[in-house]
């Protein structure tokens, strides 16, 4: 089962490691370096799960989350944060993030959350189809 994943983070090393690790599991993931890039990517492809760093220069993670939720309400977002900020955590959850992962992220943990987020997206899509 293929999951369309987009990783949004301005930290190059982290992105590279993640792409590699997902690659080992035969999961291709795309990456974006900023909120703007993420939104541009979202306009061209239908992502299932977006892993989004809270702290980025330019448009920050919460602002990006808001726009993602507006433009692709079915896409699930997992927030990623290096410093555990409670306020950002609350805002993220209230804005409809699916889950939170603290950096340094444990890969299996992250993978597990991605799978759960994808499961939810599928359930949601099915429910909408039936509702329509």
């Amino acid at each position: 089962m293929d999951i369309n994943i987009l990783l949004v983070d301005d930290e190059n090393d982290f992105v590279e490691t993640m792409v590699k690790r997902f690659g080992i599991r035969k999961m291709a993931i795309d990456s974006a370096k900023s909120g703007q890039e993420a939104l541009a990517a979202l306009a061209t492809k239908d992502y299932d799960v977006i892993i989004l760093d809270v702290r980025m220069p330019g448009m920050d993670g919460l602002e990006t989350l808001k726009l993602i939720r507006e433009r692709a309400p079915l896409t699930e977002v997992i927030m990623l944060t290096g410093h555990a900020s409670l306020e950002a955590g609350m805002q993220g959850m209230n804005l409809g993030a699916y889950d939170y992962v603290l950096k340094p992220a444990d890969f299996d943990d992250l993978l597990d959350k991605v799978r759960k987020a994808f499961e939810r997206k599928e359930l949601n899509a099915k429910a909408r189809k039936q509702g329509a």
Partner: protein
Amino acid sequence: MPRPASKEPESGSDRQGIGQGSDQGMLARATGARLWKDHGLLLWAHFLVPPVLAALVVAATFATPVLAGILAAIVLGIAAVSARALMIRLSQTEEARLALTNQLIQSQKLAAIGELSAGIAHEINNPIAIIAQEGEWATHLIGEAEKQCSADFAEVKDSLREVRAQVDRCKNITHKLLDFARKREPVIQDVDVSRIIEDMARLVDKEAAYKNVTLVRSLPQDLPKLRTDAPLLRQVVLNLMTNALHAVSEGGRIEASARADNGFLEISITDNGCGIAPENIDKIFNPFFTTKPPGQGTGLGLSMCHTLVTGMKGEICVDSKPGQGTTFIVRLPR
């Protein structure tokens, strides 16, 4: 015993429809209309035995006065007992009816406040956006003017910055309100509650450490999976933990625990903080009720928790002793 939240736990389907079908049933039950079905025979006896016996007394008077006396005493006794039973029953049903009416009024009030505030939020959202845009434009113009006539508009810029900050605050509130009013159908998944509590606790840990507060987790190893909406539950847990963190003072303690019992899973967040004053306990689930200084709390946290938990077909209760601490319990069906 923790007291149930004053908002009536209602099923998601009749969110606004208060006072219809199911409530009528509850009202009937509370007022004792059901009494006839359950105790019909007994009630017939209640009403009929005394007059029948009275008739016997009259008949007996014609036979012997002694027999009449004994029968009269029995009649009086039975009449007294049945009258007492009826009185007790009546006052019980009256009490139940009152409690229920209060519950209905409370939940109607909450629904009305919620709807009204969402309406207002929607209406003022656009003007606020325009104020923000114009403010930005004015800031830009001032910047240009400054360059051209090399004057110093520091004060004007300062005041524009303040306008912007306040507009941002308004935007935050309207967004929260609109988000709050948006009806979210829960999406049901297998959820590992221990994991959710642990994850959310980690978000709180750092801030707790600043305050020298310990956040203890007591989570059983064998907690069964719950079928519920994961992100909604995360929101509830995080809100309760944050409230607890705000309530405790330096060196305080918060405990997050979970346990399963018959058909339910219970999550409790206990703190040894300031507690809730008795006169406030009925209001804490109201939208906008807050004891925090302006700008620090909007008072939407618990109200949102209540809506989310009810949407998950669960219940949220609070138990608090001023000066000693507070426990919030979330009970969800498995």
